[in-house]
């Protein structure tokens, strides 16, 4: 019952290139869509998040594009750097008894080559 589907599973991008990771969801009640970045041996850390009232959110080199009608959202990393090499997780959530418990995608392992 994977509620959020993420692709690709792995991605290799050259330094300076654009990294794109896609996610799709089914539950139209979701109203919070964060992206998390995880380095080996560390816990996930919030990278950027969006709510469905906007179609795009940008923070530095990181942009979320959100398509409510298609139930899809994506992370774009512009000018990718070797330091961006990490695992990225998309997630979706809604307000419920669990607060905003996150439903995660399976993750994308990004490698940025020099």
């Amino acid at each position, binding site marked *: 019952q994977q509620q959020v589907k993420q692709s690709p599973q792995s991605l290799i991008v050259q330094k300076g290139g654009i990294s794109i990771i896609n996610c799709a969801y089914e539950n139209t009640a979701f109203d919070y869509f964060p992206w998390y970045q995880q380095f080996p041996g560390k*816990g996930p850390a919030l990278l950027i*998040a969006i709510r469905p009232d906007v179609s795009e959110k940008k923070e530095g080199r990181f942009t979320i594009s959100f398509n409510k009608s298609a139930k899809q959202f994506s992370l774009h990393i512009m000018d990718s750097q070797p330091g961006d090499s990490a695992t990225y997780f998309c997630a979706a959530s809604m307000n419920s008894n*669990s607060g905003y418990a996150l439903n995660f*995608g399976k993750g994308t392992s990004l490698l940025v080559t020099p």
Partner: protein
Amino acid sequence: DAGITQSPRYKITETGRQVTLMCHQTWSHSYMFWYRQDLGHGLRLIYYSAAADITDKGEVPDGYVVSRSKTENFPLTLESATRSQTSVYFCASSESWTGRGYGYTFGSGTRLTVV
């Protein structure tokens, strides 16, 4: 230091033994969560707690027990460990909307191996 602390960092236990993973946060966040991370599955919610003495099941609760007698602590107990519970366990706490997102902070994880 303020933050969320998990202990132990690494644990090896035998099948059938009871083991408790500890989680402590210093912010007084209302919500706390336990996730497990497995290759090919991402992170899956085990249990969550909305406040002291209020806990509920997540997606994969079988074989786990939680308690929350104090706001700052949220221990996870494996009653009788099985090899399928070999995983990395993450505790998280959450506050209200911060402007960037819900202040969802993860601990550094406990790598548990059941042999």
